[in-house]
């Protein structure tokens, strides 16, 4: 990371030149239609908008998939088949730690994107690294939870409730793990390729992905763990 960074103000000037209309940052219908935003009749949107938009649509579909697993949990919550109930398996202190780690990682993820916007490689890498570390903490804690449960004989094969519990929480964990791998790839790309257009586009998508996982986790934390602990 030896290249000399531009001062922030100069950076801002460059950004204005690259993205003069602050595409995607305007409310609909505030002014005249924005050229390049793909609104109305002004012609196709810029690549940056297309990528972000398409990825949003993908995230929506991913959330629909999660909703099926949520639905399965809602249906099977009391189908314990004589085994442990949900109240007997949740461990709120650990989950509170997990939640804190994940929410904090979303914050650092956002800071990394602020660094991207300032075109600052060093800070981008630092914040991405912290994000990944927090994600790792989350995944390890979840793994620990699963292993402890398994050692008590509490596995998905035991009952319908446990099936849907492990299915839902595990699916989210899998997403975080894949997200972590993606994050490592992005760190390498920033390191090697710098802030090329397509790298920045990928970073936009990664950010959206990571925040979406947070939102899903809040659902899991509330519906599975908090509401479950009272059961």
């Amino acid at each position: 990371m030896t290249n000399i960074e531009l001062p922030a103000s100069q950076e801002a000037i460059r950004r204005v030149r690259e993205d003069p209309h602050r595409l995607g940052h305007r409310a609909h219908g505030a002014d005249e239609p924005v050229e390049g935003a793909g609104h109305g009749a002004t012609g196709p949107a810029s690549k940056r908008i297309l990528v972000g938009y398409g990825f949003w649509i993908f995230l929506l579909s991913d959330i629909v998939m999660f909703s099926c697993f949520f639905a399965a949990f809602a249906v099977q919550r009391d189908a314990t088949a004589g085994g442990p109930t949900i109240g007997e398996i949740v461990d709120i202190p650990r989950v509170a730690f997990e939640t804190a780690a994940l929410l904090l990682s979303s914050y650092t993820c956002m800071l990394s994107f602020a660094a991207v916007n300032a075109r600052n490689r060093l800070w981008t890498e630092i914040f991405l690294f912290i994000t990944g570390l927090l994600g790792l903490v989350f995944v390890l804690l979840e793994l620990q939870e699963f292993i402890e449960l398994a050692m008590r004989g509490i596995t998905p094969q035991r009952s319908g409730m446990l099936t849907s519990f492990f299915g839902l929480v595990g699916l989210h964990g899998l997403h975080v793990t894949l997200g972590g791998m993606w994050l490592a790839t992005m760190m390498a790309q920033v390191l090697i390729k710098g802030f090329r257009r397509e790298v920045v586009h990928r970073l936009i998508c990664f950010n959206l992905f990571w925040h979406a996982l947070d939102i899903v986790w809040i659902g899991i934390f509330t519906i599975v763990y908090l509401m479950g602990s009272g059961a």
Partner: protein
Amino acid sequence: MFGKLDLSAIPLSQPIPLITSAVVILLALGVLVLITVKGWWPYLWRDWITSVDHKRIGVMYCLLGVLMLIRGFADAIMMRTQQAVAINAPGYLPPEHYNQIFTAHGTIMILFGAMPLVLGFMNFLVPLQLGVRDVAFPTFNSVGFWLTASGALLVNVSLFIGEFARTGWLPYPPLSETAYTPGVGVDYYLWAVQISGVGTLITGINIVTTVLKMRCRGMGYLRMPVFCWTALASSLLIVAVFPVLTATLAMLTLDRYLGFHYFTNTAGGNPMMFVNLVWAWGHPEVYILVLPAFGIFSEIFPTFSGKPLFGYRSMVAATLFICVVSLMVWLHHFFTMGAGAAVNTFFGISSSIIAVGTGVKIYNWIFTMYGGRVRFETPMLWSMGFIFTFIIGGLTGVLLAVPPADFLTHNSMFLVAHFHNVIVGGVVFAIFAGLEFWFPKVFGFRLHEGWGKTAFWLAFIGFWVTFAPLYILGLQGMTRRLQHINFDVWAPWLYVSVAGVGILVLGVIAQVTQLVVSIRNREKLRDVTGDPWDGRSLEWATPSPPPFFNFAVMPNVEGEEAYWGIKLRAVETQQLSPEPAYEPIEMPLNSPVGIYTAFSPRSSVSR
């Protein structure tokens, strides 16, 4: 390396699959040898396999769809003949084989026949009609296609290695659980549908982004051709419900592979949950198919009536209405499974309400023809055949949507007749209408008229002779999926139905003949204007076939029916628009990512 796979997976003792596989393998080898001898590989690799051009991908989708329609039709012939000969007799297909056939037939026709064709049309047409140069994500587009193709390949491999599922095209548990279906059949189904489902989702995302964010200048929402609206609605449904399919199949896979209890009938599993989830996908899926079909007809009626579409805005509204309401009717597929009177009533009413949106469209098409200068060319014949056929199918649908009536007709041949009535009469007729209509645009020459009309009449008559008897059989109490029949009263209608299949076979032959004759006479049938039917939307403003960049200069649209407007203005002013300024443009490069993603070595799917 092969896991548990060994020679016993090849059906050496069953002559029918064995001979079929031998013929298919020989044909495939023949094609490969031909390509090699003629030295076509570089051309295929460069211009098709790695192409990210939406038009090429659209054509490949359609080719896949047509091949699979033929494969599914072969299954259909076997089922109809089996039922005709197995009256108080065993017939020629043993039960376990018969069950595989009806499962494969449904899966292939819907997911690998109709879906690729519909996606192919969307791919080819949407960018052209919107006046842009490609879809939003060209490389992903290629990935989506090749995933679908590899799913289709997997289904067909099951014909000669192992077996296919025997569970019906929606594998209801507990039958589809390992306890009751231990073989590899359901696994084939799960992997094939899962892989192609991901491909479909990718295409859906692509089309939504393209329509919402990539229209040429001036192409506001209310100037888009109706086909683009229906492609948008259909793709929105894809984005909304294909993840449901993915989740459902993933759960079934977990049950089968890891002993989970999502849908088992022991240890708190819940088979009804599968039925709910799968129809939450399955019902919208039929509208994913039929909405673009409506779009195709909405292009054809105005063109061949020489009039703008009647009620454009109500057409758009009806499309979106159907798109939303189709998400709220899934329970009509299992009124009999104990939901109770209140729930059944809600879903009965919501199902019937869908017919309102469809009715609006039917009237609009009829009023488009009214007072127009109607030309009865082949695409128009298919469209008019559609109106008649689809109305009957819609009416029987409304009948089925009345819960007390459905208790009598559920899972009977009446139901089978209903959905063939809407899917063949709606989707398949649209596909043939569309193929006839856009063929000159895609390949640069028209299809032969006479053979096209012959094919239409054979298919239309054949359809009714095949499926009308099924309504009667259903009312006489015949249930679906019977491998043999021990009740003579049904025999005459089964014979009529198999005769209908004979007519349909002639229809397919006529269709193939049309293609061969047209290719032979392509010089005579050449479309030099790019606008063979006096079209109204932007795809007709390009030469046939369109160049890979579609438009040298991006059009600037000034009203509804963009191309019609340009033509009118030229006639009024007696001159063409001024020569535009040409500028260098940017186009995506070819990419082998798609084919590698789909076919890179992955672990064996059989357990």
